[in-house]
């Protein structure tokens, strides 16, 4: 790959989730040259792993499809998947970036026919379902993947399975000799839309996420409810496959806690309120959702959604941070222990399944970032010292999809301003 793909008039957007796609498109549609670098094999990020959005309960295909169409139609955006930023040096208007591109082992000749997947026997944990099920080691990341191109897991390269995939491809798109590449180029501004990851629930020792099969995270629950998920949309327990009708939702699992994440993750209250409606849809009047909360933070227009869920007879609310979870050995039910602070009643309540509304941790936590980046106390990106790099979406603050898009648009405008300023300085020099 040649280095001439970019100049200091180019904007680099790091991360191809909903915020990164938005930031890239807004700049590109203003005529700027944009490189959109995504770490995984597909655009879409965590948004594409949701079953539905709140508050309208529509499917993520809706918002993503239009963005993918915009990207396909815009020659100003260059999408690079399986690409990570290795280094950034320099300052506003003049950054040198180094990107590492991991081998996909499948070239652009791929038509997405799926013959390689059929030929391969080895399976790997399915990243699109948070590892709840397995997928063939030659796979399409998910139905909405962009590019619609297969990936070969590095674990089968050099094995008979790898050769089988190569032999099965009618288009000669499998290239097992592909190597990691490094590219360097200049850009004028960088938008960091690196997103978030779910807080590691196993760190919350009293909740036993690592010990109890029937304690799962809200992200995993999202996959359970999705027809394209590991259970085909049936809400059953991972432990024994039993139908889960009596479900506890524990709020602030990791968030608002000096021991774990200091910040309020903002989305978890609405995510849980939304998920209680999945339970109702699945089981009707038999459904029983119990929300354990400190306080419900359904902000501005979401208040209506909250009011509706509050009036739903299948949903009850208990004002309490659960102290610990124990296991009923006989039936595998998690037992929640704590005190209801409205009246100070001590409870020990059994549920079929516990969903931990885990907090948002910035994906860059623990990653060495360029010196120019400024982080807040929770590792969200506040900006950069020289003013040429910006955080967008949930890399900048814990945001839902709607607000991530707003944040990305704002970051994109700031990046465009940097490019304009650079261009005018050079013109007058």
């Amino acid at each position, binding site marked *: 790959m040649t280095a001439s793909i970019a100049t200091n008039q180019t904007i680099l957007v790091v991360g191809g989730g909903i915020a990164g796609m938005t930031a890239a498109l807004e700049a590109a549609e203003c005529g700027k040259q944009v490189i959109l670098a995504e770490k995984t094999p597909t655009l879409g990020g965590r948004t594409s792993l949701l079953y539905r959005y709140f508050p309208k309960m529509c499917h993520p295909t809706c918002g993503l499809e239009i963005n993918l169409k915009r990207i396909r139609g815009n020659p100003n955006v260059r999408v690079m998947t399986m690409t990570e930023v290795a280094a950034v040096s320099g300052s506003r208007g003049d950054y040198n970036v180094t990107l590492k591109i991991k081998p996909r082992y499948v070239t652009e000749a791929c038509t997405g026919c799926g013959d390689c997947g059929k030929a391969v026997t080895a399976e790997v944990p399915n990243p699109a379902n948070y590892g709840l099920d397995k997928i063939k080691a030659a796979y399409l990341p998910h139905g909405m993947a962009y590019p619609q191109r297969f990936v070969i897991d590095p674990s089968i390269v050099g094995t008979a399975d790898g050769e089988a995939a190569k032999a099965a491809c009618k288009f000669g798109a499998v290239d097992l000799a592909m190597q990691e590449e490094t590219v360097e180029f200049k850009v004028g501004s960088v938008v960091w839309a690196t997103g978030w990851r779910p807080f590691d629930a196993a760190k919350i020792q*009293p909740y036993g996420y690592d010990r109890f099969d029937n304690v799962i995270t809200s992200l995993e629950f999202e996959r359970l409810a999705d027809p394209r998920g590991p259970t085909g949309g049936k809400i059953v327990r991972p432990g024994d496959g039993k139908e889960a009708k009596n479900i506890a939702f524990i709020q602030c699992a990791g968030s*608002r806690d*000096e021991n774990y994440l200091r910040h309020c993750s903002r989305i978890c209250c609405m995510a849980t309120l939304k998920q209680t409606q999945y339970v109702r849809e699945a089981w009707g009047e038999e459904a029983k959702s119990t929300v354990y909360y*400190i306080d419900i933070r359904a902000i501005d227009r979401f208040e209506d959604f909250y009011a509706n869920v509050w009036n739903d007879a299948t949903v009850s609310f208990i004002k309490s*941070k*659960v102290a610990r979870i124990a296991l009923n050995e006989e039936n595998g039910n998690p037992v929640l222990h704590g005190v209801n602070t409205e009246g100070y009643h001590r409870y020990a309540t059994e549920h079929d399944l516990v969903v931990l509304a885990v907090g948002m941790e910035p994906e860059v936590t623990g990653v060495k970032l360029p010196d120019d980046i400024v982080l807040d106390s929770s590792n969200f990106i506040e900006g950069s010292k020289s003013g040429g790099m910006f955080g967008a979406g949930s890399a900048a603050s814990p945001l839902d999809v709607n607000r991530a898009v707003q944040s990305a648009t704002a970051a994109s405008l700031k990046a465009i301003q940097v490019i304009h300023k650079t261009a005018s300085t050079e013109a007058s020099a």
Partner: protein
Amino acid sequence: MTTANPKYKNSFLKEVEANVEDGHMVKMCMQCGVCAGSCPLGPHWEHSPQKIFMMIRAGKREEVLSSDSMWMCTSCYNCIVRCPRKLPITHIMHGLANYAHRLGLAPQGQPTRDIAKLFWNNIIKTGRVNELTFSLAMYFKDGFGQGIKNAMAMQGVGLGLVKAKRLNPMEILGGHSCKDKSGIHKMIAKAREIEDRRKGFAQ
């Protein structure tokens, strides 16, 4: 002109902040209830920590200071470990117990308070715990008759300790002392003076 509703004039929170160890952290409680749920003795007290904190904020001075709850704390530190706001709950509970005791508002006949008083009075005499007189004081705290009964019930244990040289009957005569007894007394008097000044008990 309106005058403030006396209900909302909370001098008790300020009093706790000024006079109780770590009392300034009480206002940080967000009432999540994880301390109450985590307390191994939780079901046995009248007021859980977060309830005590709310009562302080509500100005319920008498109820808080005469509560037996602070005296039930065994310092297991489960609440401190789990508190999402990192309140030093154990320390605040002990601080409240001490403050209530100093004011003479702590519950009478509360066993933890009784043993704490006996232990303190015993150890400050010589700078060493006199196990014999401490045990006897415990036995007889509820009267002579009950004391004899307690002593008889514990006879076997007592004799065993004597045989194993863990208990010396001669300690009844005053017992052993630390090297610099008057130094210890001066130190305690000074500590008391400092505490009085800090907690508002200075004359």
